[in-house]
Structures are given as C-alpha cells and as structure tokens.
C-alpha cells in the first residue's frame, strides 16, 4: 500500500505500507487544519496523482463498464460531493421503466393471505402448490367452448377436467417418449394413454373427466401434430438430449445444467482411493466378524462343557446315593469329580522341585480331553524306570535273604543286605571318581552272589602295592558301601580294591588316624592327613587280633552257631567298632 503526501514542493515519496492492524488516528478535518491545506492543494492540483498514488482498489465493476457514461456521471457527482462538498445534484443511472400494470390484480390474486403469528416455515415445492401443470391457452379455450356448446350443461367439460386430460397426455408422452420431438415416434394411442391414467399421480385423471378422454385426445393429437410433436407446454431448455456438449454450450437457451455430470471426472482419482479404503474396511470388518464368530463358538463349547460337567456330577451323586442305599463299599474312586491325571508318578519327590508342572501352559482348565493326556511324559517314563529298578532291587533283596537264610553272617560288621536307592544312584554317579577310597564294611562271610558293584580298575597296575593273590576258589564276599554322609567317616578304615598286574586283586587300606580329635579344625586335619605311615602297615593284616570284638567274632565263628537274625546281622552298631577308641584300626579280611 502506498500513500502519498506532498509536503512543500510537491515532491512525492513512497510512504510505508499501510498495515491493516496498526491503529490509525481518527481526526476531524477541523482538527488538522494545517495539514488540510496541503492536502487540499494536493488534491486540487494533482488530482490524478493523488488518486493513482494511493493503492488502487478494484471497484469490482468491469473496467470497461466502469467507464460507461452514466456510471461515470454518478461517480463523479458523488466524488464531488464527498470531496468538494458540492451539493450533489441528484444524478442517477437511467433504467428502463417499470410501470403500473393494467391487469385486474384483485381477480388474479385473491386477498387470501393471513399472516401467521410465528415465522413461516414452508417446504412444499412449486409443483406441489400449483396443481395441474397444464394451463389452457387461448386456442384450447376456443376448442373447449365450441366443444361445450354442443352439450348439456351437466355434460360439459370443465376447464379443470380439460387441463387434467391434457396434462396427463403431455406427462405420459414426456415420460414414455422423451425424444418424441426428434425421433418421429408415433404418438401414443388413446388406449395407451388411458392405461396410464391410474399409473402415476401425475397422469391421474378424475373419473368424470374420462368421459372426455377421447375428444380431448383427438384435439391434443392435432395440436401436437401442429407443434411438430413437441411439448405443448413451454419448457425451459435445461438439457438437450439429442445433441452433444458443444451444441449445448453454444445454445444460449440451454440453462441450469447439472453439475454432477462432470464432477465424476474430477473425482476419479479420489474414487480409487475411496474404493481401496472401502475394500480395506470391509476386510477388517469381516475379520472382526470372524473373530466374534469364533468367540461365540468357544462360549458355546464352554457352556456345553459346563452342562456335561454338571451332568457327570449329578450322575456321580446319584451313583453315590445308589451305593449308599445298596450299601456297596469300595473306594470312592468314581466319585471324584475333578480327577487328576491317573498316571501321575507317585514316587518322584523331586518332581515338584524340578518344575515340571510349571512348564505346562495354563489355560483350558476345563478341557474335556486334553491331547496331552494321551502322551507319555518324560517324567512318567523316568518314574516307570525307577519303579522297575526299585522293584528288581527289592526282588534281589528278597532272593538274597532267601539265599542267605541258612547262612550266618559272622563278619564283624555285618553286611547290609539292602542298598538304599540313593546309594545306588549316587554310586552310579560317582563311577568316574574312582580313585577315591571307599568306606568298606567287610565281613568274613560267604555270600553266593557276587558283589553287585565290584569296581575293577585295571589302570592302576603301576601302583606299587602289596600283591594279593586272588584265589578263585575262595569266595570272599566283599561289599562296598559308601560311607554314610551323615556321620564322619574319617575314623573308619578305608579300603580300596583294585585289580593289579597279572589279574591280582589288591586291596588298599587306609586306617583311621591314631590321634583323631573331633575338635581339630579342618585345617589341622588336613595337615596331618597323610602324616601317618599307613602304607607301612600293608603287611599287617589289619585285624586287631586283640580287640574284644575280634575275640567275640572268632569265638562265634568257631562255635558254629550262626546268627540267623538278619536284623542283628545287619545291625552292627558302629559303636561296637568305634567304641574302642584305643583301637588302632579295624581289620578287614582280604582273604
């Protein structure tokens, strides 16, 4: 926006732009008398400059029309009035006249209008409000008058009836033969017309008017023929059906074209997107529907399951009642409703700890028959095997006892007939840890079964050790057992049996320490661990022939009375051996 101010000298300069947001001081002309003089001269002398240097705002009238004579006259007059204060002569733009009409207004427009108290609300259309669309023209009037003169007053066709018929013919033709004016379609016959009387509201003709259908039809047909089969009602050319777009465009009488026709073209690109969106939406909705369907199925399943469970429960209850009434006593196995899987391993103390249960997925707690139930789990396999092992051990123990029935265990520390399963397991585990000494409770007792866990180590041949000749004929029952972990085994004698070079069986021995003190700390124990010459005693038999038990043992053996009580056999209290602290060691028979 440029403003111009011409101070003295009339030199113009470019002013700052006018910001529409800056506040402008409003002044009365009288307040700024000093400036006004300048402005006045400015306006007076450089009128055109003053105008042109201000931003030109478009008047909005076409520039060519703006220069029209009368408009300019008025504008100039107004400008003169606004600027120079001249009393504007009443200049106006001449327009063609509108004069009072000579028609009898009151007859045509009856004074029916009554103003409603509230604002009018109205939605009927012109078509709703104007009755039969056809309006008689002067020719129709002549025809109708001539037609009616021949008839009795009661037989006369009224104007309304005539218009109904004409309207019906016109509308029917327009509906049935939209191109009647151009394609030489034969005019619809009266019969066809009459068929249509009831068809549509627009074609409707009163019963009374139908008497004149034929006469009016003939007249209509003639008029139509005169009019080149065009509609008798003047119609706007809204769309030319028979010509292309170009012809339409150049015809000034064609108006009110529909816009939608071309809108399609414009939105084609968007249509594709919309179609894609709709497809996607449909797909998603179908998926959602499918999900809901599945949920429904599941809930039906649950319901059925509940019903079945209830049935089962009730039937069990009836079974129980039946049993009570019949006084049948057995385990109430079949009364347990929520049965845990039958094949759960019983003797797996560690099963819970191992977390096998936790690996199962939760869910489907009510499942009728889980497929997993049919599968054999690892746990069960292990449990099965263990059971078999235990069983065979028990069997062996039984047979062992049976075989030993008539034998007497004369050993100092009698053999335990049964190994605990833990021992077995641990034994198998410790196979690799072979070169350790094992606590041995050896008895001089003959046993027919070979030791179950003889450990032969042929790799120890190099070891220098007393050679023990093994006599195949002499069955020396030797039992090994791991020292019990509960009590300290350090004071017990330890032996190791091994097969030496040439097949000799060598039994190494380690005797308890001479001065063992319970309260020695581990460090000291460790220090003196090897501080004894147990190897030197290897020649010695290791049997303290002077010990009381030794005497007792030998005497018992010599007496020839076997001790049959296996309990007694087994229970050789360690106190017996360990009781004598003064003993240097226990003897273990190697031969």
């Amino acid at each position, binding site marked *: 926006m440029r403003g111009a101010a011409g101070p003295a000298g009339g030199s113009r300069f470019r002013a700052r732009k006018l910001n529409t947001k800056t506040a402008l001081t409003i002044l009365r002309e009288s307040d700024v008398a000093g400036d006004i003089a300048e402005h006045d001269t400015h306006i007076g002398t450089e009128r055109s400059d003053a105008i042109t240097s201000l931003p030109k705002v478009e008047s909005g009238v076409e520039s060519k029309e703006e220069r029209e004579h009368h408009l300019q006259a008025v504008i100039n007059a107004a400008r003169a009035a606004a600027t120079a204060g001249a009393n504007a002569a009443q200049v106006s733009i001449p327009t063609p006249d509108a004069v009072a009409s000579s028609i009898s207004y009151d007859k045509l427009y009856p004074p029916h209008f009554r103003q409603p108290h509230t604002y009018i609300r109205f939605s009927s259309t012109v078509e709703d409000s104007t009755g039969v669309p056809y309006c008689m023209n002067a020719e129709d009037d002549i025809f109708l008058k001539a037609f009616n003169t021949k008839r009795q007053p009661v037989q006369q066709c009224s104007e309304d009836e005539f218009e109904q018929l004409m309207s019906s013919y016109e509308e029917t033709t327009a509906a049935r033969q939209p191109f009647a004016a151009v394609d030489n379609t034969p005019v619809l016959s009266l019969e066809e017309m009459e068929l249509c009387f009831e068809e549509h509201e627009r074609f409707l003709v009163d019963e009374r008017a139908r008497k004149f259908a034929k006469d009016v039809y003939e007249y209509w047909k003639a008029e139509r023929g005169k009019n080149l089969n065009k509609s008798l009602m003047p119609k*706007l050319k809204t769309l030319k059906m028979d010509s292309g777009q170009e012809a339409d465009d150049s015809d000034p009488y064609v108006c009110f074209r529909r816009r939608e026709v071309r809108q399609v073209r414009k939105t084609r690109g968007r249509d594709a997107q919309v179609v894609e969106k709709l497809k996607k939406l449909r797909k998603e909705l179908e998926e959602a529907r499918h999900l809901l369907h599945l949920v429904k199925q599941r809930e039906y399943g649950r319901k059925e399951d509940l019903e079945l469970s209830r049935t089962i429960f009730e039937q069990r209850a009836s079974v129980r009642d039946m049993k009570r009434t019949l006084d049948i006593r057995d385990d109430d196995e079949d009364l347990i409703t929520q049965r845990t899987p039958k094949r759960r391993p019983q003797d797996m103390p560690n099963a819970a700890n191992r977390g096998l249960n936790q690996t199962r997925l939760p869910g489907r707690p009510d499942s009728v028959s889980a497929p997993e139930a049919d599968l054999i789990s690892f746990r069960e396999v292990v449990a099965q095997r263990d059971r078999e092992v235990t069983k065979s051990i028990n069997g062996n123990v039984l047979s062992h006892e049976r075989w030993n029935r008539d034998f007497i265990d004369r050993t100092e520390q009698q053999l335990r007939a049964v190994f605990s399963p833990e021992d077995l397991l641990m034994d198998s585990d410790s196979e690799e840890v072979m070169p350790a000494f094992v606590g041995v409770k050896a008895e001089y007792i003959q046993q027919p079964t070979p030791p179950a866990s003889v450990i032969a180590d042929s790799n120890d041949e190099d070891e220098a050790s007393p050679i023990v000749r093994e006599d195949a004929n002499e069955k020396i029952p030797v039992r090994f057992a791991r020292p019990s972990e509960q009590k300290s085994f350090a004071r017990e004698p330890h032996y190791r049996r091994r097969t030496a070079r040439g097949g000799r069986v060598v039994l190494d021995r380690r005797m308890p320490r001479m001065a063992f003190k319970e309260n020695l700390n581990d460090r000291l124990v460790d220090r003196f661990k090897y501080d004894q010459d147990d190897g030197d005693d290897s020649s010695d038999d290791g049997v303290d022939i002077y010990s009381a038990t030794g005497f007792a043992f030998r005497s018992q053996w010599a007496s020839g009375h076997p001790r049959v009580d296996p309990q007694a056999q087994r229970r050789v209290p360690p106190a017996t051996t360990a009781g004598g602290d003064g003993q240097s060691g226990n003897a273990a028979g190697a031969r």
Partner: protein
Amino acid sequence: MVHRDESHDASEVAEPLEKGFATLETLRTGVKAMVEKQGEKRKAEILSIMIRKGRPTYYVHYEDFNKRLDEWIEGSRIDLSQEVEWPAPEKPDKKDKSKDKTSKTDVLKDKSNSNLKRPRSLIDRASGTPEASAGKTQSRTLRAGGKENREELAVITTEDMDATPQPEDESMDIVDVQTAAAAAKALAPNEPYSREEEIEKLRTSGSMTQNQTEISRVRNLTKMQMGHHEIEPWYFSPYPQEFTDSDLVYICEFCLESFPDFKPFSRHRAKCTLLHPPGNEIYRDDKVSFFEIDGRRQRTWCRNLCLLSKLFLDHKTLYYDVDPFLFYCMTTRDEYGCHLVGYFSKEKESAEGYNVACILNLPQYQRQGFGRLLIDFSYILSKREGKLGSPEKPLSDLGLLAYRAYWQETIVDLLLDGRTEANVEELSTAAAMTTNDVLHTLQNLNMLRFSKNQHVIVVTDVVIQQRERQREKEKIKGKHHLRPELLIWKPPVFTASSRTWNW
C-alpha cells in the same frame, strides 16, 4: 465495448476507416451510425435487424451507455444524413499495420483495461465475421516479429490490436495496468479455451460470467407483467424460446412461473396456492420479511427466480443449476401475500469468501431504499456467521453505487461513534466487511491520508455534512432499519453428502 472502436478511430487517424453514406436498405449489422436518443444524437452500433410489420427495425447499442439501454428503433431515428462506419472487413495486413502503431505504452494500458472484456466477440457475433480467428493468427505473427517491444507487451497488445487509448485513459495508473496485464495473461488468448475455463470455474463456484458471448446477447423479451407492474427487461434471459414471440410475458408473483399469454396465466392463477416464497421465514419486522430458500430443495422456484433476475443482471450466468446456492428473498406483506421485492443468492460454500453471489432489487421496487436493506441483511447474516463478506465480482454499475453508499454510511457511522483511533481490521470486523472493501471506502472518500509520516483517517467535513443531511432526511421520511435481533437464523451447515444428495 463499442467505444473501443471509436477510440481506435480517434487515435489512428492514419487508419482509413471505411465510412460512407448509407440508406436504410444498405444498413447491416455492425454498422455504426448516429442515432437520435432523447433529443441528442449518439453513436450506436446496429446489432440486429428485424422486419416487423413489414418495416425493418434495428436493435442498437449506444456507445458508452449500458446495455440495458439497448433498444429496438425505427429506421427513422437513424441519421442517414451523416456518414456511417462500416464494419471493418478482416484484412490481416491492415491489422499488422495497426499493431505497429498501437504498440505503445498507452495502448498497453488501454489494452489491459479492455482485455478482460473481449469486446470483439460482440462485434463478431453481430457481424458474423470470423475476426477472432484473424486476431489469433495475427498475434502469432506479432510474437514472431517481436520488434520494438518486449515480447510480452507485444503479446498483450495484439489481443486488442485495434484498441487504442481514450483520452480519459491517460489517468490510468500504471499499477492497474500491471494487474490487468497479469489478468490478461491468465486468460487464454483464444476464446473457446477461456470459455471452457470459465465454465469449469462456474461449475465449482460463482454465478457471474465474464464471457462476452453470454453477455452480448440481444434482449429477447419485450415486456414482463408481474404483480402490479409491467417491467421492461434489461438483458437477455433464457426463458423458453416460444416467449420471444410474446409481447407481454406474465409472471406469477408468488411462484414466479412464466406464461406467454394471459389465458394460461389466468388459469394458473386459479390453481396456484403459493402466497409467499416457498421457504422458511427467517426475519420479520413491520415492513419486510426475509425467506431463506435452498436452491436444491426448491429447484423450480429458484430457477424461475434466476430466470427473472437474469433479465436485470447482465453478468449473471444460468449455465449451471441453482443447487449450490441459498436464496434470501425480501418481501413486503399485505393481504394478498408476501410480494417479492428483491433477493440475493449466496453460495452454500464460497471459496472466495463471498457473502453475496447475485443481488437484485426488482426494478419496480428500485429507488425506495430496498437495495440498502438487502445489502444490510447480507452483512447481518455474515455477522451472525462470524465471517467477513464481500459481494461476488463483477459488480454491476448499480450494484457498485448501492454498495458504495452502504459502505460509506457504515464506515462513517463507525468512525463517528466517538472512537479516537481505529485500525482497518477493527472496522472490517465491526462491519463484517472485508478489509479491502474498508480500504476502498476510505480511499474513495479521500479519508485515508498520510500525515507526519504516518497514516491517519481524516473524517472530512463534507462527509459529516453529507451524513447529517442524510440523517435529517431519514427522520423526515422515516427510514427503515433492519433489526438484527429479529433474525431467527442459524447458519445452515451443509455436509458434502447433503450438498450432493440432499440428505
């Protein structure tokens, strides 16, 4: 439009214009002759010739007069004692020459004003000569030559090669030239293309056309009877072609149906039950009522209204249907019903922010202050909507005057309400006028001044005097004012679907 050719004569003295004496028999369309008009002789162009009752009558357009004054005249009013100008035959070589002469800056200015308008098509149409195509070929040659002028200037000038500046054109501002030149460039050089463009524009918005072929038509109806009045149409309107034969076309005052004859009209009146515009009354005071009518719901009525208003609005186009417009109809009431006085249409959604598309005060009610009420109401609606509004362009001459008067009154009242300063945006918000219209008004009244290095608004004494005189006159005459509190109206909301499918 015709003045252009006149100016052409004036400036190009060297250009030999075919002049000569004519007789009634040799007169043809395109000829310009002096015609007696209200006691004086004016140059007029014959646009059409018809034999009526055995005698030829001539449809003439007076230069520098609005087209509404075009008329059919007897041959006797044509002054054949003076030479007449014959329509220029197309001679490409001659036009080349004329181009050389006219390619001056002043021509450029003139051209810029004129090219929005395309006066040529009128002449072409009337004379039936294919001048447009000649013009095209010529512009091509010119561009190829491109001698003394910059090429763009040359291009611009060629569009109107026979147009030369009028004396009063000298005052044109160069800025205006530039904007007009830009507009000229925006318009395609050849007529069919720009027409297509315009149709496309009209399809989406607007109701006014710049298209000369639509504007330049010969008026087709002689006289209209409506209500208590008989009205002379001003411009062409596409009523059914049968009506052109009728001397008096009857229009039902309430449903606006038209009839070429009295008999069908009287029959129609016997059946018609409408007593007011077929819509909802949204404003009522002791003098006028306003009805809101949806072009889609009342298609027939609105079409009738548009046909009627086209008789008095030159630039209105009826190319497309009335669906995207709302019609606000002002009526007076009596025991006969609500008589349509005027209306304005409004786009349901205006891309340009127009609050009025077409506005018409029926000729029988003009000069009674109704036009101001219509304009006022359009701004009351805009205020209710919380929008700024402006009428769709181009304005007619009468429209411009009416709007300027309203704007002046509104702005001056705002400035005189005791405030000491105001910015343009405040004024525009208070009046619901666009800032451009506010500026236009301030400048037009010479109130926007630059003093002490800043802009000020100076309320001139003459403006105050004018306003006071006006107020006194209003007191005496009892001027009617609309009262916004009587408007019972919520801005209608149209979704895309409701616009398309009428949901």
